[in-house]
């Protein structure tokens, strides 16, 4: 029964904590703990709630639009509570890089344990090589403790700036940071040519440019241009259809479809947009990618609808069968006073049409899915 598709399904190589040997439960735990409990994938733009639980930004936003509480502990939560969990994001990317290597080591270890006679061999050198690779990624992450743990680096050794992550000589790092992370050459130039008030001015204006964009004038257009600001929630009921279309057009989104379609599109876009901002700047998707995602999502929804209409023809062809079933069920309904006498009949009639109509829809659905993949 469970032959082809299930086999195909299970043969897919999807990273899962069970890839690690059973004897390394802590590795399984580690692998699980960097996965979102909603989508089971590695966290994408992880955010934390007030209760401390973390989820992918998109997953939790979608969930909060349905139920305003944490999926893990049911504590009340709103979108306003979401805070990007940057450390977790870094852990995930470091783990993704080190996972194949650790997995390989764990498997080697397991194989070695299976061969009883041979003793420890030269696994140790590779063991040493391993953590060093991992720590090269993670040392970047642990920026606050950056001067490599233990001894103070020599003046000429290269370190990462804890602010901008640029690599420079240790002796230059203070000057570099004092000058707002300017490249060292320009700093020294400025130093030689007396720090004029002019440079300070430009620096201040650089700093201030990070503040809300000129809120005068056409605020709407500006908001669309500025990629760093989350989109506010919209009360769609108060908008006219034209306004809704304008809002979509602002972001270069299609303005076709009726009101519910437009609303859903804008809601989804807002969700995607804001979730994207919860990722660290380097990992963010471009506008075009977000638009492509939205298009894909809409197409999937459309397909679903079409499949249901296909199902109408199924209803037509089986009309006679359904009539018979209804007829068979009706006597049961007619005498509700004695439910105890006919539970078997009720049960058999409800169970008999084996895949219920609902799952019929899905049969079509999953067929296509498998064909596609």
């Amino acid at each position, binding site marked *: 029964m469970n032959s082809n598709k*299930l086999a195909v399904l299970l043969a897919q190589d999807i990273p899962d904590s069970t890839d690690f040997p059973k004897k390394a439960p802590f590795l399984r735990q580690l692998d699980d703990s960097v996965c979102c409990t909603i989508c089971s994938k590695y966290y994408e733009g992880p955010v934390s709630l007030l209760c401390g639980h973390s989820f992918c930004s998109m997953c939790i936003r979608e969930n909060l639009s349905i139920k305003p509480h944490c999926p*893990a502990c049911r504590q009340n939560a709103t979108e306003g509570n979401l805070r990007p969990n940057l450390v977790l994001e870094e852990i995930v990317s470091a783990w993704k890089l080190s996972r194949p290597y650790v997995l390989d080591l764990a498997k080697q270890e397991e194989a070695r344990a299976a061969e009883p006679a041979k003793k420890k061999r030269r696994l140790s050198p590779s063991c040493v090589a391993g953590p060093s690779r991992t720590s090269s990624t993670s040392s970047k992450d642990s920026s606050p403790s950056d001067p490599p743990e233990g001894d103070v680096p020599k003046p000429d050794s290269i370190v990462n700036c804890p602010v901008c992550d640029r690599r420079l000589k240790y002796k230059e790092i203070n000057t570099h940071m004092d000058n707002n992370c300017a490249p060292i050459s320009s700093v020294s130039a400025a130093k030689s040519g007396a720090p004029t008030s002019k440079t300070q001015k430009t620096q201040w204006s650089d700093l201030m440019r990070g503040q809300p964009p000129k809120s005068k004038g056409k605020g709407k257009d500006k908001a669309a241009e500025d990629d760093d600001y989350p989109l506010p929630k919209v009360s769609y009921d108060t908008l006219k259809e034209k306004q809704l279309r304008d809002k979509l057009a602002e972001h270069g989104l299609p303005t076709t479809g009726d009101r519910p379609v437009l609303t859903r599109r804008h809601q989804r876009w807002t969700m995607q947009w804001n979730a994207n901002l919860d990722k660290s700047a380097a990992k963010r998707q471009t506008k075009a990618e977000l638009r492509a995602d939205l298009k894909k999502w809409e197409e999937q929804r459309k397909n679903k609808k079409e499949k249901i209409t296909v199902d109408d023809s199924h209803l037509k062809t089986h009309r006679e069968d359904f009539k018979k079933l209804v007829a068979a069920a009706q006597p049961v309904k007619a005498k509700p006073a004695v439910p105890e006498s006919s539970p078997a009949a009720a049960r058999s009639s409800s169970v008999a049409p084996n895949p219920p109509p609902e799952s019929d829809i899905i049969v079509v659905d999953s067929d296509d899915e498998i064909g596609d993949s």
Partner: protein
Amino acid sequence: MSLPKRIIKETERLVADPAPGITAAPHDDNLRYFDVTIQGPDGSPFQQGIFKLELFLPEEYPMAPPKVRFLTKIYHPNIDKLGRICLDILKDKWSPALQIRTVLLSVQALLSAPNPDDPLAPDVAKHYKEDEQGAQRVSREWTQQYAS
């Protein structure tokens, strides 16, 4: 890839590493539709029974709960004669952090701890409230008759 990764992962684990007393296998023609069996928990009137259930993952899963139904007849205050189950996590207390496995474990736990104060089968619940021993005897008889 339109079957969500989460469903594939859950299926993999259910098949490779089933929870004790529970089996769940998807239909080959519909990977969202599972055949489930649950063993009656020891110490309950359903002990030694093997109950068949069906489980279906709707399109919205995991944002919406799976649909679960008993196919085997069972005498239980929270399960009606159509096999529908009264369990909060299958309704309003659903959370996407729950899984097929946890849902089925909860159903198994429900067999050990019938709750006649929140009935779905009022007559069975009444029986359980008024004469627990007698009701348990019927549950045992039904288990023997239909679930073994």
